[in-house]
């Protein structure tokens, strides 16, 4: 089930919410059990086949963590931690990376390893990371005595289960245990509705609009020329931001409905003026995880300059690989790793760029790196980048020439085929740029929120507009053929 679906908004959510607060009047544990069962239902809705794996993962990690938090000899605890992390790594590796490695070994060594074509269990990357953090912290004796119900809820709480934020146990465990959260708190519910509606609007109205153009452009990558390649890639840049941050907003809003405060995950990343700044604003919970559980254990910046650069690079390499099992993701990670090293070297040189130039460089770099992130393969990425560089011709859309009344011959005209007129896509792109650069982000709006009537009316409008666009009824193309 996804948040922006009819089933979720009009059936699952109201039922789960109402029953949860009704049960809370009776018994907190039963209410939380209801929330846990609902989360499993939410997860298994796509395919119940995913459920046994998450049950297994929960049980093994909880028991391992429980063992690690006790006063056993350090050597045994260390062995147990290693086994626990290995278990998670093997689980993730088997389902997500086995075929990738097999394919590459087959190509490199002319081998014939059979591919598994295993169904990638949903959210496995997210819940694996959350649980690795739990194991490490249990080893460090930083976890309290969690019970299995609260632990399972921390991992599977449906607002954050599928696409994050990657929640750290310390951020929510107390909340799941606090009896204060049993009560229906109108302040949280009002705020939750507000944030959820913003997220829904970002996803359904903005991201899904850009998605049509980005998908169309990437599906015809070989025929893209200069203008449409830039509009295609910009469409994806904005689609990804509004989609992912919209989803995070919805998760935060949903958490609030249940009195759970989830951590922020985005903070105007396209306003960043350096790549380091970008990663403080984009997928913040992932950055925090990688910093805490990879960068710092590797030595962080405490082991000299070379090791610091190497550690930075490793973190981004892991990040790239975590995002997907493919060379495009690895290249994307390598690009960000390299850029972060350059950024660090530049910062330590004491020189500074003017803010607009720094922003432009950062935005362009991030934008170009998304080409690898989005492309299904390297050939497509190279083809799109070639078009962006003008190697496939610099043709101008007819509307553009007519609009500016340019005295240019028909040789420079081309059929603009991204699925909407050039002007429409250009206007949407400009509006999106203005929104991401000059308006408050949803976290700032959340923090400034006051439940005034006019905000309630605006929120209702956002919600209605988005909710009535969930089911699109489109006219059949080629009407008269």
């Amino acid at each position, binding site marked *: 089930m996804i948040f922006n679906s009819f089933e979720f908004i009009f059936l699952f959510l109201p039922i789960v919410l109402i029953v949860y607060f009704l049960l809370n009047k009776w018994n907190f544990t039963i209410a939380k059990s209801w929330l846990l069962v609902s989360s499993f239902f939410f997860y298994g809705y796509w395919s119940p086949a995913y459920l046994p794996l998450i049950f297994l993962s929960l049980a093994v990690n909880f028991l391992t963590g429980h063992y690690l938090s006790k006063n056993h000899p350090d050597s045994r605890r260390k062995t147990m931690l290693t086994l626990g992390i290995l278990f998670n790594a093997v689980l993730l590796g088997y389902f997500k990376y086995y075929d990738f490695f097999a394919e590459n070994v087959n190509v490199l060594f002319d081998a014939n390893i059979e591919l598994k074509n295993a169904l990638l269990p949903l959210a496995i990357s997210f819940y694996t990371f959350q649980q690795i953090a739990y194991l490490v912290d249990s080893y460090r004796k930083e976890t309290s005595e969690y019970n299995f119900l609260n632990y399972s809820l921390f991992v599977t709480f449906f607002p954050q289960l599928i696409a994050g934020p990657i929640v750290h146990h310390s951020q929510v465990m107390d909340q799941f245990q606090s009896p204060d959260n049993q009560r229906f708190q109108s302040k949280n519910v*009002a705020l939750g509705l507000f944030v959820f509606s913003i997220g829904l609007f970002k996803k359904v109205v903005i991201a899904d609009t850009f998605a049509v153009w980005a998908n169309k452009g990437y599906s015809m990558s070989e025929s893209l020329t200069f203008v449409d390649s830039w509009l295609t890639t910009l469409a994806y840049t904005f689609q990804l931001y509004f989609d992912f941050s919209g989803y995070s907003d919805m998760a935060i809003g949903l958490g609030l409905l249940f009195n759970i405060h989830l951590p922020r995950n985005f903070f105007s990343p396209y306003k960043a003026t350096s790549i380091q700044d970008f990663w403080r604003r984009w997928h913040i919970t992932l950055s925090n995880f990688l910093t805490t559980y990879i960068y710092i254990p590797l030595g962080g910046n405490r082991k000299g300059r070379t090791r610091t650069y190497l550690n930075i690079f490793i973190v981004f390499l892991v990040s790239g690989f975590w995002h997907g099992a493919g060379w495009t993701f690895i290249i994307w990670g390598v690009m960000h790793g390299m850029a972060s090293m350059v950024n660090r070297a530049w910062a330590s040189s004491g020189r500074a760029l003017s803010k607009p130039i720094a922003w432009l460089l950062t935005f362009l770099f991030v934008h170009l790196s998304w080409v690898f992130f989005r492309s299904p393969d390297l050939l497509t990425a190279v083809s799109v980048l070639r078009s962006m560089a003008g190697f496939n011709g610099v043709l101008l859309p007819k509307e553009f020439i007519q609009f500016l009344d340019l005295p240019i011959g028909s040789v420079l005209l081309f059929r603009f085929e991204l699925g909407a007129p050039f002007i429409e896509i250009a206007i949407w792109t400009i509006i999106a740029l203005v929104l991401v650069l000059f308006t408050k982000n949803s976290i700032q709006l959340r923090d400034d929120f006051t439940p005034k009537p006019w905000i*309630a009316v605006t929120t*209702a409008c956002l*919600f209605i507009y988005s909710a009535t666009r969930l*089911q699109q009824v489109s*006219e*059949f193309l080629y*009407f*008269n053929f």
Partner: protein
Amino acid sequence: MNLPRQFILIFSTIVCLVLTTIVSFNYVMDPLWTFNQKHTFNDYQSVIDERLQKTSRMFFQPFSYDTILLGSSRSTYINQNKFTNMNVYNFSVNNLSIREYDTFLAFAERQSDQPIKRVLIGLDFFKTSVQESERPVSLVNYEKKLDDPLYRAKNLFSIDSFRYSVQNLRMSIANEVQADRVYNHDNVAAARHISEEERNANTAEKIHRFKDEFYGSNYVYNPRYKEYLTIFTDRHPDVETIVYTTPISMALFQTLIEEGQLDDYEQWLHDVVDVFGGVYNFMYPNEVTNDLTNYFDGHHFYPIVGDKIAERINEGPNAQSSFGVYLTKENIDSRLAEIRKKIELKKS
């Protein structure tokens, strides 16, 4: 009342009121034909997606017919009630590919309360090219939508459905067909009448598009076309088949000739006759196709021509008529020679 509670109350009230209005209006207007609503305020129904609308009607409403009419947009203008001695449902939809006919008939067979005895098949020449007939398509994706138990409810909440509901209400109040194709409650399509000037412009545009997109170098007669027809007959051996070709205007037919597709046209008719034994051919110079006023774009005829097609089929293969010739293996060569002669005469 404290502010957060007031916020929740305002939000909930607005959301409930607006959504209830949208849902109720969509339910009453029923633009996707899922609730069997028939009244004076929805007796003009816009075409949204005929595959969706017609399959929905068949799935959600009582459906009992012994004959199914299959064809593309031209065939939608044939009134299903004009056929005698058969109870016909016109399941024609826009842009129907020859490869879809099978799944359409199979779906109709599953939905009908009585066995389907007969199928009327409308064939179009321009749909015989590789470009227009090679892509594998079927009705499966539409059937999947119907399998969703929440399908009807979801559409009630849709703002797109709401827009079509408003459009249908406007047409119904004005009692006027305001689009190229509009249906009534009985699955009968009507077309907006247009001026001569508009017709000429539409026809010119259509000819231009056919030259650009369907005929000439873009056209290659699909060598597998006959195979697709055979697959259809093999899969439905117990269903009687009546086949006809759709009449296009001579202006457009002339373009076909100029673009070098006359031999392909003849090949097509030979293949159809080989597979089905006979075909009612309406696509040749005759009193209907020579008169451009029978069309609104040179390609799509008005329902009155659809009535004539039904009438001709009702008369049977052996009847003599100035509109429609029944081609068989025995007469096809002589009939095609006559058509060539007529074309030559027109030229001179």
